[in-house]
């Protein structure tokens, strides 16, 4: 027994998008214990944490394709389908960056200069904060669907995104300061290591950048 009335209602993309964001955040969050282990020269732990990141990233990929396959072209949605797909791809990049940066560090057994250790870990954790805020905004997605992307709930999401912007600004400032400090000690380090150190800074900073993009995408959906 099948019924056409039930088939009219397509699978809502909300839950899987939220689950995807959560998985991407979990991957980014692992950067904190990962870099802690790297700084402490505990490579065994670093390898273990990296494996977890890879695992989470691939789960995010699965969820992503699951959302995509549930969003066929003939689906009528309250928001443009393209916006949702783009939101999804920004979320995905958060996990991708976590995987990339941890892979790079592990592959070269990179050492973080002791002078910048504390500030670097703070920088990592601020980037994770940004991903967490992005998750918080995406956690409001079901409420946004409930309220038709209007009114008080839309304002709440806008304020979360504003907080996210603030965190991303923090990471930019922190990154600039870290660059200056690396520049100051550049001569004491191997040139290749310095090059990669800058690269690590950038890739880590990308986590906050992508998180911010998620927030901005969500805002764009609100303005429709």
């Amino acid at each position, binding site marked *: *027994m*099948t*019924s*056409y*009335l*039930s*088939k*009219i*209602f*397509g*699978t*809502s*993309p*909300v839950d899987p998008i939220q689950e995807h964001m959560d998985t991407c955040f979990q991957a980014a969050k692992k950067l904190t214990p990962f870099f802690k282990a790297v700084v402490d020269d505990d490579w065994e732990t670093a390898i273990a944490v990296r494996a977890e990141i890879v695992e989470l990233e691939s789960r995010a990929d699965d969820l992503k394709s699951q959302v995509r396959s549930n969003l066929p072209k*003939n*689906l*009528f*949605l*309250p*928001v443009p389908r393209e916006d949702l797909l783009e939101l999804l791809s920004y979320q995905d990049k958060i996990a991708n960056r976590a995987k990339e940066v941890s892979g790079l560090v592990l592959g070269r057994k990179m050492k973080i200069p002791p002078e910048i250790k504390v500030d670097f870990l703070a920088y990592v954790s601020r980037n994770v904060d940004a991903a967490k805020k992005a998750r918080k905004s995406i956690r409001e997605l*079901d*409420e946004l*669907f*409930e*309220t*038709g*992307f*209007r*009114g*008080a*709930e*839309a304002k709440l999401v806008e304020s979360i995104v504003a907080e996210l912007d603030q965190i991303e600004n923090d990471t930019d400032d922190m990154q600039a300061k870290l660059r200056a400090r690396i520049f100051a000690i550049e001569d004491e380090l191997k040139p290749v290591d310095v090059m990669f150190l800058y690269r690590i800074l950038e890739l880590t900073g990308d986590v906050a950048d992508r998180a911010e993009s998620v927030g901005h995408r969500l805002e764009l959906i609100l303005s429709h």
Partner: protein
Amino acid sequence: MAFEFLMTNGGYYLALAALFGIFMAWGIGANDVANAMATSVGSKALTVRQAIMVAAVFEFAGAVLAGGAVTSTIRKGIVDSSLLVDKPEVLVLGMLAALLAAGCWLLLASRNGWPVSTTHSIVGAIVGFAVVGMGIESVKWDKVLTIVASWVASPLTAGIIAFLIYNSVQWLILSREDPLERARRYVPFYMFAAAFVMTLVTLFKGLSHVGIHVTTVEAYLLATFFGVLIALIGKYFISRIKVDKKAEKKFHYYTVEKVFGILMVVTACGMAFAHGSNDVANAVGPVAAVISVVQTNAVGQSAGVSIWVLLMGGIGIVIGLATYGRHVIATVGSKITHLTPSRGFAAELAAATTIVFASGTGMPISTTHTLVGAVLGVGMARGISAINMDVVGRVFLSWVVTIPAGAGLAILFFYILKAIFM
């Protein structure tokens, strides 16, 4: 000749009419009602058991209190019976064939999950036998065209009403900072509106077939009374809803939806009532036609639809519900999970209002199409997270198949019955 013929076979015809009529009513109860009730079950406003209780009571009430006008249309609005004065048996056999055809087609369609409408089947079947059995001029084409036009107008109307209702919900309640307080305050007004409209249309248009006549003032007073009564009862239940902190944390509108859940109980009753008022006629209209011919040996007399025929239809639907419909309600309901009460009520209220109004004016419309139109209206107001437009298209296109299928089967059965009895 015809006179004697009816005298000898009249008993058979009555028995067959009752049998086929109950068969079709059973089919409606088994499948069609499920679609009308599934939205309530899917949004968890009602359990399956409660949905069956509501459906049984209100389908029955709708059929008896407001089903007369549509029954008349099916019975004598489509075929010009004045052409049949000298051969009443053709009308009897034709109506029997139409019933059997629509019943079989529905059974086949619901087994295969085809989105067909009971109304389209029966109208197609009646037109089919009339064209073949009595000639193309025997069909009241202007009336048929009006009916077909109403099949386009009813989903459209329901869609627009649903759009407006849902937008008002957004504006009054959901987009505000204190949605729960606002829901508690405004939801009783929607309950009032639902009860008021249902009662008013029934009083104006339906009850005359039961032999009750009310004046305009009385009708408004009674409708207001029922509206206030329902709103007060609803308000009491709403005041008993407690805030579930844990569920609120996960979904901030959890308690708000609970309030709408109470409203949806009211609109579910309205939906069942509306369905009963319109769709029961599909089964009992032809039965009423057969009875009036056999009892009076004449065609086209003006006696109203007798109550017990409507009762029979109501009972048939309830049996269909009890034997088979509950499984369908459970299955369909479990699949419609993304229709929350704040949306479901808007769709149901819009559909029920449209259907009851159509019933009042004697228009046999498709309940399912009207409900789908209402759901689309909520979707247009950005209320539904995903609507499968392919399926919507198939639902609306289905009547292009259903009408010729109903007509073809009716013609086939008409010749078979003719070979047996004439």
